């Protein structure tokens, strides 16, 4: 089991490094017009001739470190194609070395270091994603138990069929549609004006806990609705599978009540195979925050990533990819711990 976990973590870590490297190199190679875009957006009012613009572009390239080669080797094809070795003076090496020292780089947009930016954003995202993860898990457990029914409920009743239909319909709806729908229903002066839709950033320090929680209701609800079907439906299917097993018949013959049969006998056996999907819960919640924080204008990591992607701010985008991949590693480790908790054979073998 430990070996399995180490193998999984190693593979996921390797994949995370490879993905981040790929995004880094592709963004540096493909984005030739970055400095032009920045120059034109930065100082529109300046009258620029061709020569000053060339000088300014060169200065900007130097400041951003874009004048160095991107990778260790470059392929040059002047008359005959060949490779050229640049040594350690290249953008990728500097980025990787900075990463190993905990330095994520500087944003293109405002020149600020990315680490503190991410930290302030995580203060908003962690409670949101954490609350959503806990709520989604609890609701999924409850709904799974309801959907599975008792050991005697062989066929789906109409109520359960309707619930099943609603859940499976929710599965394909994009997160932003859910968010817009909730926003329109519950924070609309024309419909129900129940919940506040405005941002947390309006009032950062004098925030009361109650108001804070009230503002988190809709984002958390959106995230829960988005991940609920992929948790609850497989759980219900696994429970129904377990209810057909022989040990359930034996327990029923011994007179175990239906509710405790479901919770104490079937559930512990149905859970372990599903823990892999619980491992992907955290990264998919983080992907959900990209949309949710944009809609509800919360200044978290997701909105940071979405705005950086819209503004071609590559260092921030690469950092966001790294954070997401790190969260996936965390999810894998967490799923392993839960696996040990859910399966006594593994717990006792440790």
């Amino acid at each position, binding site marked *: 089991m430990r070996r399995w976990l180490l193998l999984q973590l190693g*593979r*996921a870590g390797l*994949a*995370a490094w*490879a*993905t981040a490297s*790929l*995004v880094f190199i*592709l*963004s540096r190679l*493909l*984005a030739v*017009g970055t400095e032009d*875009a920045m120059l034109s957006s930065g100082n529109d009012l300046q009258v620029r001739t061709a020569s000053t613009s060339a000088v300014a572009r060169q200065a900007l390239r130097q400041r951003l470190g874009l004048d160095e080669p991107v990778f260790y080797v470059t392929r040059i*094809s002047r008359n*005959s*194609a*060949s*490779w050229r070795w640049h040594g350690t003076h290249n953008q990728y090496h500097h980025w990787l070395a900075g990463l190993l020292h905990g330095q994520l780089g500087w944003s293109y947009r405002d020149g600020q270091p990315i680490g503190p930016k991410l930290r302030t954003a995580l203060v908003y995202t962690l409670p949101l994603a954490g609350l959503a993860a806990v709520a989604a898990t609890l609701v999924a457990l409850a709904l799974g138990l309801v959907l599975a029914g008792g050991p005697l409920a062989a066929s789906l009743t109409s109520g359960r069929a309707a619930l099943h239909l609603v859940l*499976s*319909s929710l*599965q*394909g*709806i*994009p*997160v*932003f*549609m859910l968010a*817009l*729908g909730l*926003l*329109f229903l519950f*924070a*609309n*002066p*024309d419909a129900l004006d129940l919940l506040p*839709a405005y941002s947390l950033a309006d009032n950062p320090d004098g925030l009361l806990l109650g108001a804070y929680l009230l503002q988190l209701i809709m984002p958390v609800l959106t995230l829960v609705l988005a991940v609920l079907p992929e948790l609850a439906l497989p759980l219900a299917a696994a429970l129904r599978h377990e209810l057909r097993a022989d040990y359930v018949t034996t327990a029923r013959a011994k007179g175990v009540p239906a509710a405790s049969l479901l919770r104490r006998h079937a559930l512990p056996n149905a859970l372990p195979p599903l823990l892999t999907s619980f491992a992907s819960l955290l*990264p*998919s919640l*983080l*992907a959900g925050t*990209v*949309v949710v924080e*944009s*809609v509800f204008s919360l200044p978290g990591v997701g909105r940071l*990533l*979405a705005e*950086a*992607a*819209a503004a*071609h*701010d*590559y260092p921030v*985008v*690469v950092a*966001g*990819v790294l954070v*997401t*991949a790190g969260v*996936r590693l965390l999810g894998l480790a967490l799923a392993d711990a839960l696996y040990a908790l859910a399966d006594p054979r593994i717990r006792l073998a440790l």
Partner: protein
Amino acid sequence: MSRLLRRPHLKALPLLAVGWLVAVSTAGLLAPWLPLPFAAGVPDLLHVAEPPSWAAAPQHWLGTDLFGRDVLTELLFGARQVVLLSLPATVLAALIGALAGGSAGFWGNRGCRLPLAAGLVLLAAIWWLIALPGGGQVACLLLAAAALAWWAAPRLLWVGRSAWPLPLDSLFQAAVTLLGAVPRLVLVLALAAGPPLSTGQLLLLLVAVAWPEPARQVRAQMLQVRTLPFVEAARAAGLTTGRIWFRHALPHACRPLRATVPLSLAGLIGLETTLAFLGVGRPPDVSSWGQLLSMLRQEPGAWWLLVSAGGALLFTLLALQQLARSNR
């Protein structure tokens, strides 16, 4: 028509779903030639962000958006994104996924063996193409070795037996793990963060993130299919392995795709509209349902945008789910 509806296997719901999908694809294909009262992308600056008006002279049947463009026109042109971007991406991803997953599942890590001569020729070609040091000479040397191996194969036993196993399954798993390291939305956001992409580039990007899903299903099914007696019978009948794989095993291994391709189309439509909603990767003048919906962030009271664009998107996704359910 009424007799059609009464037949037991043609219920109203699947018919409705197919009808809606046909309507959306027709609208998407024919949008530039439809007789619309307002041209696409042309703002009506006198009527900006107005709810539907049926009585007054400029009849914007579904209202106008924040730039003053007619919502009905934008909606019909937005259907083009579904037909010309998401649908081809899904089909391509399913094809690539079926081929990749099918070969990884059928041959595994040791099943596909490259003869020594063919392997050397391949190596020479790669060496020459990416111009590794000593390009031409080394490639010629490798080719000579390949010719020698080809000559020796029927004559010397150890040359004839030696072959390089292609670790197809490991390569496949590595690619899937690499693409699964971060959620699909984050990967697409990161790769589309550059200057606006053309339709072809976005199509390639969507295919690149979408193919692992069908590939995994085909691989899992292929692992079962390859042990079935009819594959063994085909082998005993003397068919070549490639033919058995393509003509006999692959069609069976692709069966789960019938139910999952509509769902992955729904997933890609969701991804594409999310990109447009966030304003990433596309030039702002491309009409899309996601872009219409993104205006709700600036104008939360624009119910007609939510009803029209949101309704179109919702009906399309639900219809695709219904299609998947009836294909199961």
